[in-house]
């Protein structure tokens, strides 16, 4: 097997209304077993996927947002959220799920997984990735 590649999963769509967000998360969870360098990006309506307090009872769909909290346990801890997308929707970091991971190289200190970055920085992360899967 060749060396580790940088995988970037780009999430652009709202969590409900289409199945892309849910099936993207399924790819991320399966992909975590392959010990690659994994990052997630959330932009456009994709930022809604990480919002707190999702309640799907009225639409009869499964609320899968608690699964994002498990990403840290899968060593998926580079989660980039685009500032401009948050701003355009009147959202801030406080509206998002508190996603964390435990750093085994730092006495299992709990650290934040989410980094809010600019569109310019997002472009750089895409540029540096080997595999970009957009959902």
């Amino acid at each position: 097997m060749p060396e580790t590649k940088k995988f970037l999963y780009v999430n652009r769509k709202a969590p409900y209304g289409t199945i892309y967000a849910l099936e993207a998360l399924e790819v991320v969870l399966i992909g975590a077993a392959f010990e690659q360098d994994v990052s997630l990006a959330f932009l456009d309506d994709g930022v809604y996927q990480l919002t707190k307090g999702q309640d799907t009872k009225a639409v009869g769909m499964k609320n899968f947002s608690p699964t994002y909290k498990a990403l840290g346990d899968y060593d998926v801890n580079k989660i980039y959220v685009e500032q401009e997308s948050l701003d355009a929707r009147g959202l801030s970091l406080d509206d998002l799920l508190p996603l964390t991971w435990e750093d085994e190289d730092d006495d299992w200190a709990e650290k934040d997984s989410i980094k809010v970055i600019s569109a310019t920085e997002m472009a750089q992360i895409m540029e540096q990735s080997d595999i970009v899967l957009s959902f």
Partner: protein
Amino acid sequence: MKFSVMISEGPYTHQASDTAYNFTKAALEDGHECFRVFFYHDGVNNGTRLASPPQDDRNIVNRWSELAKEYKLDLVLCVAAAQRRGIADADEAKRNGKDADNIAPGFRISGLGQLIEAGIRSDRLITFGD
């Protein structure tokens, strides 16, 4: 160059499968190697042999089957996506207690790991979606 393809949309509603087919065919004719074509989301609907499009239109499913035969392509339908959408081979039909299968020739059903592996093992992974 060794490439793989991911197709995220079903046939006819979206152009994704047509474009992916044209790309794959052209790349193969140009001497490139295709490691895998992976169908995800509604893309798994490209793999039903029960599709019967009008005679005067292209047959998207048959086209993939024929290309697979000619170039020994690995056409993989994601199992989780296929189960949701009612695409089954004989094993899947039996496992899920269904009375029929509908997978088209040249396709097989397997897991999402096949997509990740395609990314790792190919020089490029090209996605065709909406």
